[in-house]
């Protein structure tokens, strides 16, 4: 589904991703861990099409498409979803009408009929239960004045409504209390299927107790320096990153 090959990315001539490769197949959950500033969010942004990054080399195939060639909205309509580490506040744009517009753009792209207000409300009510979000947040402008945790839940609500093929969750667990963490993880597990996949960026092994990954990758200095199964996350929890980073430096 997603195939990243030897990706090099820089920002203003500063290299940030340095030969990153990753394969994600349908039905899989990949966790990406790694120290602050190692390039995790950069990877997520490059995959979703944010401006300001220069791809110096490498390729990204997504569902057989050259992902890097597509505008961000086309990527989204093709089923790619990014849950932001720092969701953006958008004053004056109503949360519900925003999400309805987003869903209908995606449906149009798939050749499906647009949902009317009533059907949409039915869908959103159902998905709100999934993330246990307060209903009044729907009537407010997108993320405006939301608490940190509310913003993260709103990201998961959007994910649940848009039902992506590939979802990238960038530190969705950061800033969540333990109940919220369980709810967010529960949401992911309910959406999980044989035909979709998740890339979960996190600093905490704790999240992986709830969302059990098939693979854990360690990103350091813009490269994956180690891949393993969920046991790797436990090991990292105990030993930190230093031993891995030292090892990769001596080996390279």
């Amino acid at each position, binding site marked *: 589904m997603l195939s990243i090959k030897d990706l090099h990315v820089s920002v203003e001539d500063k290299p940030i991703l340095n030969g990153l490769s990753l394969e994600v197949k349908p039905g899989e959950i990949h966790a990406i861990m790694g120290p602050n500033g190692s390039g995790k969010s950069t990877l997520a942004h490059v995959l*979703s*099409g*944010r*401006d300001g990054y220069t791809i110096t080399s490498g390729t990204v195939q997504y569902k057989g498409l050259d992902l890097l060639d597509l*505008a*961000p*909205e086309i*990527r*989204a*309509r093709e089923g790619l*979803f*990014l849950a*932001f580490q720092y*969701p*953006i*506040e*958008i*004053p*004056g*744009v109503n949360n519900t009408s*925003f*999400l309805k*517009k*987003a*869903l209908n*753009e*995606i449906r149009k*792209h798939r050749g499906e009929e647009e949902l009317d207000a009533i059907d949409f409300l039915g869908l959103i009510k159902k998905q709100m239960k999934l993330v246990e979000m307060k209903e009044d947040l729907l009537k407010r*402008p*997108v993320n405006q004045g939301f608490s940190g945790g509310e913003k993260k839940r709103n990201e998961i609500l*959007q994910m649940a409504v*848009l039902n992506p093929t590939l979802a990238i969750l960038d530190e969705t667990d950061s800033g969540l209390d333990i109940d919220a963490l369980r709810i967010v993880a529960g949401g992911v597990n309910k959406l999980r299927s044989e035909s979709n996949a998740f890339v979960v960026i996190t600093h905490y092994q704790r999240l992986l107790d709830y969302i059990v990954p098939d693979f854990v990758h360690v990103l350091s200095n813009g490269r994956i320096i180690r891949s393993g199964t969920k046991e790797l996350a436990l090991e990292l929890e105990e030993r930190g990153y230093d031993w891995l980073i030292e090892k990769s430096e001596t080996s390279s």
Partner: protein
Amino acid sequence: MVPGTANNFRSWLREHSQLGEQSQFSLSASLRAPSLAVLETEAFPTRKAEEWRYTPLKQLLAQSIEPLTGSSIDTDLLEQLKDSLTTAYRLVFIDGQFSSEHSNKLTDDFPAGLNIQLMAELDPESRQRAEATILTSKLSDDNIFQHITRGLSRAGLFIKLDRDIEIDIPIQIVYLSSTNSGVSCSTPINVVCLEENSRLQIVEQFASLKGTQTVTLPAEYIHLKAGAGLVLYKIGLESEATDHISNTSVQVAREASFKSHQYLLGSRLTRSNMEVHFSGPGGEALLRGIYLGDNSQHLDVRTYLDHAQPHCRSDQHFRGIMSGRSRGVFNGMVLVREQAQLTDARQSNKNLLLSRDARVDTKPQLEIYADDVKCAHGATVGELDPDALFYLQTRGISKPDAALMLTRAFAAVITQEIQIDTLRSQVHNEIAQRLNQIETSHV
């Protein structure tokens, strides 16, 4: 004519001020005379004058003016304007002439206590009141356009509401231009007097057929007595071949309230000058507005708040959206005089530039001579937030659509304060329609 002047607007003025029966004019000869004298002697402001630095008058002044004809009208456009208010007392001017066909009857359609007459046909008592109101009105920017209107106006209304009367149904005044040959000039003059504790809403709409060339020079003199309340909406939808320069002078007496909503969406050149003079303590002025320009439109908003009395409150919030090569100007003056203790004056001007070639000059000014006051002002000029655009795109919304959503949201902060539902949605639609055109032509 002075030899060598190729000033067509000026020469039209010279000729035109001599024409016509006295009975056709809005004002009496004694009031017209000083203004006609100003027209004789005063030059039009050039861009050397600080107040007119940004306002391009060249095109306006180069035009020769044809007589107003009151020709056929676009009924669709009129119907659209009518639909913006479900119920209203309606008064329609077409090409500068009052249209009794499309208006309520001036004699018997209005509730008791509400007196509406044509300025040119005032009864003696009303004339005295109307002209006294004009004479006691102040305009710190005593510009020549005010005098053109005073000297030449044949159109406009005197509206007076008796004390303690509250009218919920708004008064709708429509100015429609439809002349399609040559440039016409319309100079409506309105005088509004609200007696003690009376309440009224007025909706003024300026519109024209596409391509109609008009110079519209409205002047308005408003006097709110103690405890009175006026809400004044002004919607400018004229074609981009028109010039519109308006002057509004408002006197707000003790504990009276003036609320103004301006939506300046049309014209090649718009200059709206609104001045509020507090003449008693405890008064309130709330000014809201949006100016939205595209192509080479020039939109110029001026406000002047004279806090000459203690304990008055003024609150201004204007937003500009400029695209294409358009230019916006906001010039807001708040003067707090020495005796105006406990003044609460706020002013905010925010501008959104949608293109590289668009420009805004914003000049908020505060002059404070009293010591116990609360004043705040701020102005910003910016572009659409790229993070917000990207966020919307990652949810499947195209960049033009995302830009449209964000721009509409920027405007909605102001439009949501329109208290009349149907009018609010009409203004929303007008703004959305213009933004749609902007997005499709530039992205």
